[in-house]
């Protein structure tokens, strides 16, 4: 299969928006080109659970009209992939689960609404691990999504559909949600910028909750600038979300840096990249040197409790999910499997509607919150969470930004991580930041050919700042991206084009 590429959809979001605003290109044209490309490649990639052809055309026409009326839209005509755990009114919103397979959202999530208002065009609802629980997209009950750089490999997860869509040019930008690494890891796996803002920066209203105290919406994009544009358009207080923060957002897109002079970057001693293999070790060491080359001062910092991140996360997140997912009971919406009485209906519905990983987490979480175990598990996990956050505070007393790996390997083959715990460890480097609520992103930092792999796969560098440090975070990532240009080294879908 050879995929003829359309130059209009290879553009970045920033370029598309500038062209549409200048009326060099219409939103309708970009949308049609994108839909045609989706038609051509999505059978192979499987990014989308629902392609919103009609809605996309309608939105695009409205964007063109708004442009003609003199509005200046930061995301004018930009094709958007929305992870299917975010509500978009009148469209199917499944969470990658059988229990919501046919559920039509009655309202639109705040983050999505803000992007549409800024001119983005929703191309489709993207696949994800069921209820965002997973790191490979393999837990989706509805579809298989493939990595556009090697279709025998996973795109990462849980925002794998959005990542694959953006990587394969099925959208210019994607919305993901990150609970323990679900934007950053697929970003790293798919050669993208995957950005999780500070907890509370982007409204969660309309994001179907996995773990409420950790979930945060963020962009997947092909450039840092695109990620910044998306962030600027959707960040900020929302009266519909009591955990969203009432604090002015400093726009990041206009504050991107060209160098890192005067920036102190912490390298985490506890994260020994030697354990990731010689190839990745060399890539990360090179990345740190490149940061230094840009003018940064490297300092060694330590996160001694980071090791407790995974066990802590796997108590808190399941505890919250066990409660958040109770509402899927067959009574008001979604799947219903009838039974003798209401109790049997609950049991039958949930047994048929939830997949094995979701059930596992509901069970773990129910156990962790049970009388007699609550103090030993949930309360201790909360204390560990506080200690992890304090580790970061201490580290940030010595540096402005932390650099470390975004994932412990490159995209793996399907079914390679069949043991749940090995899958949980995929998020070893991203979970501590989630527990501390910190803004963090992954940015492409090179390519590594996995053992037995046919082609090199992208590797991601993770950057992280103190709370509300988005401006520096995106600014620094841009300087690094601009100086290294790792992302453009390989094209997606090349394997198929070659074949």
């Amino acid at each position: 299969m050879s995929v003829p590429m359309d130059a209009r959809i290879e553009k970045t979001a920033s370029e598309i928006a500038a062209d549409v605003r200048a009326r060099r290109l219409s939103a309708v044209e970009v949308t049609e080109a994108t839909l045609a490309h989706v038609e051509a490649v999505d059978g192979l990639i499987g990014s989308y659970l629902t392609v919103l052809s009609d809605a996309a055309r309608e939105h695009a026409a409205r964007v063109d009209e708004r442009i003609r009326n003199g509005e200046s839209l930061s995301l004018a005509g930009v094709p958007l992939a929305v992870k299917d755990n975010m509500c978009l009114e009148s469209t199917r919103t499944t969470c990658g689960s059988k229990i919501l397979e046919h559920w039509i959202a009655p309202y639109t999530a705040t983050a999505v609404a803000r992007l549409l208002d800024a001119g983005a065009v929703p191309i489709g609802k993207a696949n994800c691990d069921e209820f965002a629980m997973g790191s490979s997209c393999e837990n989706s009950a509805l579809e298989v999504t493939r990595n556009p750089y090697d279709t025998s490999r996973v795109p990462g997860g849980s925002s794998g559909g959005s990542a694959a869509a953006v990587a394969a040019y099925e959208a210019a930008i994607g919305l993901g949600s990150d609970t323990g690494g679900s934007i950053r890891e697929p970003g790293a796996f798919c050669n993208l910028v995957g950005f999780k803002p500070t907890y509370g920066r982007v409204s969660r209203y309309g994001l179907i909750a996995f773990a409420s105290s950790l979930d945060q919406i963020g962009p997947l994009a092909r450039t840092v600038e695109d990620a910044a544009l998306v962030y600027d358009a959707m960040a900020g207080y929302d009266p519909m979300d009591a955990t969203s923060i009432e604090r002015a957002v400093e726009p990041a897109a206009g504050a991107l840096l060209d160098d890192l002079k005067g920036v102190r970057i912490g390298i985490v001693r506890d994260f020994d990249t030697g354990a990731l293999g010689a190839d990745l070790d060399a890539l990360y060491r090179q990345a740190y040197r490149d940061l230094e080359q840009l003018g940064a001062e490297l300092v060694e910092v330590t996160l001694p409790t980071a090791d407790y991140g995974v066990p802590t996360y796997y108590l808190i997140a399941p505890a919250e999910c066990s409660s958040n997912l109770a509402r899927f009971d067959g009574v008001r919406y979604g799947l219903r499997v009838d039974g003798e009485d209401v109790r049997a209906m609950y049991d039958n519905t949930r047994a048929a509607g939830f997949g094995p990983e979701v059930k596992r987490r509901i069970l773990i979480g129910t156990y962790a919150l049970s009388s007699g175990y609550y103090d030993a598990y949930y309360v201790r996990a909360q204390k560990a969470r506080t200690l992890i956050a304090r580790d970061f505070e201490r580290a940030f007393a010595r540096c402005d930004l932390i650099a470390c790996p975004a994932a412990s390997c490159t995209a793996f083959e399907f079914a390679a991580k069949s043991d749940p715990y090995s899958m949980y460890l995929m998020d070893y480097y991203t979970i501590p930041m989630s527990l501390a609520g910190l803004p963090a992103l992954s940015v492409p930092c090179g390519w590594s050919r996995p053992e037995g792999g046919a082609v090199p796969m992208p590797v991601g560098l993770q950057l992280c700042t103190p709370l509300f440090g988005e401006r520096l975070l995106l600014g620094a990532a841009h300087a690094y991206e601009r100086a290294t240009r790792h992302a453009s080294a390989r094209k997606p879908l090349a394997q198929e084009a070659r074949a």
Partner: protein
Amino acid sequence: MSPAYEAVIGIECHVELKTATKMFCGCPNAFGGEPNTKICPVCLGMPGALPVPNAYAIELIVTTGLALGASIPDFSKFDRKNYFYPDMPKDYQISQYDMPLTVGGAVKYWLEDGTTKECRLTRIHLEEDTGKSTHAGSGDGRIAGSEYSLLDFNRAGVPLMECVSEPELRSPQEAIAYLESLRRTLLALGVSDVKMEEGSLRCDANVSVRLAGSTELGTKTEIKNMNSFRSVERAIASEIERQIEVLTSGGRVVQETRGWDEVNGVTHSMRSKEEAHDYRYFPDPDLVPLEISRIDVDRLRTTLPALPWQRFERYTAAYGLGAKQATQLIDNRSLGTYFDRVVECSGNPQQSSNFVLGDLARLANESGVAVGDSQVLPEHLAELIGLVEGKRINSTTAKALVERMWNGAGSPAAIVEREGLAQTSDPATIEPLVDEVLAAHAAVVADYRAGKTNVMGFLVGQVMKASRGKANPALVNDLVREKLSR
């Protein structure tokens, strides 16, 4: 109740708060309406919807706590109470577990005989109400045997106050008096409509019995399904009786939830402790902890009205009114406010109460016009009381004047002045009238002297009539008696 046993009762009340909107969304908080018309994604627990707390509801709880002398902690939070129920949209209820909005306090109440008591409170917390299930096909509306259930979520998410008392009540009468007082307080604060029939007040009773004098608590049962104060009283009485019977016949009270059967007048077992839920409470991660500012608490404290028990104490202890009169004035808001104003102007609570609860209440009943809305200004009534006190008019004149004032006659002093209705206390004016009457009713006078002293009233009445009601009745009385005994 056998004298060997005493009952120990604690009351748990759920009170729907009178807010414009629901607890965590903008839907209207109003009773009734077409099913499922006051709903939105938030109160329906739609995927992705989030709760945002209603600040006014929090203020109402703090206000209630302040009125009841509770302490208001600096920090509070919402927790999730997890259990599955079809009319609970999220399958968890947002409630408060270990950090309620108010702690302690007490409800002061009084019994019919005027005895005042108090029952301490454990806590008051804020939570959300559930929807309503209607079970169809079972004939009696119960879930057992029903074919299907209809769900109405209009009530889902309505702010609900839970007020838990200590087990300090000792009889069904005390329980009712406690509830009455709590209800009056919430009404005075404007916190709730507290209508049991509309479900804006619901209560459960924890009942146990023990040998009188014992300090240990017996095993308790929780009584539910009581839908009027009367049924609360009956249910508690019946449950006390049942428990004593169990114990005296050598049995053991089982800790369980029991439902009140209004028709048969008994409680029956609903579920035992062994089947009790593990609610897996944990802090709601969708809601941030509440910091209660002292400034807000102080501001709310200044808005507190005179509370029913304070008024009861004033009416009975300071004003010397009876418990019944006092209760009447407390329970009829407009009458009470009017009364307070009359006392303020007249300085005579007893006379004020006589006129307000007597003549004015009667006129109000007859005309359907509330006393407060009538043409009798409190100042004018106070003026009338002043005329009576100063013996310027007698009670007959006063009664006639109230009637005329009700019909818009205005200032009683002016009428008395204009029409010369002032009471005559001059013996020189009255004595000739007494002589005339005695002369005209010689037979009656003879009767009196023969020992039929009860004819005296007739003679006094004749003198009053002759004076056109203006004579001072006490003086007439004295003069008639004096002349008859000659």
